């Protein structure tokens, strides 16, 4: 840095790179949302009740303690497959009764059912954590289901 001779980049080059990157970003965003995520499974489980349940998940700020696909707070367990692997009744017991670490949030019957529907929808989209996978020589992963 010190004592270095400075060469400047031309304004036209800077603008060219800037706008090229923005155009690539726009095109890539469309590809990701359209092609990259189009083959999600379990969309049929996204009912009106599941949609309300998603809002319950937001309104009680469940994400501060829980994760879906590993994203969220770490106080409580990941909920991606809680209903598909342990059952609806198991999840309901925690929601209605709370635990030593989880407060009783006071959800009413409708909210509880909607939240459980949402968690069932989440569970049908895939599996987390991914334990069955292969690793390539350059460090990429290939889950056993190919996704």
């Amino acid at each position, binding site marked *: *840095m*010190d*004592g*270095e001779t*400075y*060469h400047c*980049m031309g*304004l036209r080059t*800077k603008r060219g*790179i*800037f706008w090229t*990157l*923005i155009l690539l970003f726009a095109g890539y*965003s469309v590809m*990701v*949302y359209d092609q*990259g*995520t*189009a*083959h*999600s*499974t379990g*969309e049929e489980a*996204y009912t009106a009740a599941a*949609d309300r349940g998603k809002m319950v998940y*937001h*309104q*009680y*700020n469940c*994400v*501060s*303690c829980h994760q*879906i*696909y*590993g*994203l*969220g*707070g*770490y*106080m409580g*367990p*990941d909920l991606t497959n809680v209903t598909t692997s342990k059952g609806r009744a198991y999840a309901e017991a925690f929601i209605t009764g709370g635990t*030593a*670490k989880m*407060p009783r949030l006071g959800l009413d019957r409708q909210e509880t059912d909607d939240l459980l529907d949402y968690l069932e*929808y*989440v569970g049908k*989209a*895939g*599996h*987390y*954590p*991914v*334990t069955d*996978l292969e690793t*390539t020589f350059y*460090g*990429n*992963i290939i889950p056993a289901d190919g*996704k």
Partner: protein
Amino acid sequence: MESSGTNTGLRFVLLGQLSLWAGLAFGVIGAFQFLWPGLFEWMPFFKSRPLHVSLVVAWIFSTAIGGIYHYLPRIGVPLYSERMATWHLGIFIATGLAIVGSYLAGRFGGREYWEFPPVLAIPIIVSWVMFGVNYAATVFKVKDWPVHYWMWATGILFFFITYLEANAWMVPYVRGNLVREITLQWKSYGALVGSWNMMVYGTSIFVMSQLSGNEDLPRSYTAFLLYFLGFTNLLFGWAHHTYVLPAAPWVRGVAYAVSMTELLVLAHIIRNWRSSLGVMRRMVHHRALMFIAAAEAWIFINLTLALLLSVPAVNVYTHGTHITVAHAMGSTIGINTMILLASVYFMLCPKGGELGKRWTSIGFWLTNISLLTFFVCLVAAGIVKGRLTIAEQLSHQEIMVRITPFLIGFAVSGVGILTGLSLILWDSVGRTFTRLRSEQ
């Protein structure tokens, strides 16, 4: 630098410092609640966590924005509209109070990190548009922008774009497909963090060029190459958060390839380490330089960790563990906070000199040593959690018991960070008040 008679920038900076102080206090409460969830029943974790996150994010934005409003008129580029800047500050404070009030009242509704009721996104967008218009109308008069003008412009533009994108979860096309919705969340959040990093790193380059008196530095070829590399990563390097999602495999492949371009940044840091150190040694009298030097060290540590986390075969073990928190804390405290404190001290005392207060030095070292302990504890907790989750497939409860020693270290070192930064803030907030009174 000249005085311009305006102090909206300093008011933003004062607000930022107070937000940091409050955010740190809520962070320490949250850290101890990991160990004792019943602690502070009046402030459960689902309130303390969003308060901590939002207040610390407010510190970053408020101080970066304040720097831009403060610096431009003092280097001969008067703001297009002082009144618009004042309105921006007013809306920022009112929205901030509404967000804090909604969290304290337990009223949520948004996604992670923006958990407030979504209606509060409206004033955020309105005030940001005002900021963007004011900035554009101010700097478009200048020819041959230095790199920090580009970085500030990019940060402002891409916060706007990615914040809108982050709120697209409300659109049925997105929320009816879980993989699309989570991809959108992390695509937008990754770029959003990149946008505030642009504003903060731009501030760092501005402060360094002013302190060294080297006006060529922010116009050099290397500065622009690094800027475009950072911009590329802002746009395309977000997907390491979504490697585990059942999306198309090429999404993972592109993100992996883009993330690895950051190796060039790492190589640049290593190559320039000695010469950077030489520049800093000559200007060691200035408190701002201490913070910039600390930020450089944290950039090296965090970039190394980020590169490791971007390798899918590593990420599958570290995703959803405390290593992610370590990376976030290393970035927000180690890099962003150190750079912004440098900016605060440069604003308050551009010529340096009188900043030899002993307590702020103690605060500086206490903060950085505590942060290093904090970081190591989180990385250790993450490694153990990753191994126990993937290799041994233990339950959440069993894992939490096994990582408790690391969480104790994390909470105790959190107190060290709060204490260290409080010593610094006690000095800087006092100086900011004095400066504001003297300019009235």
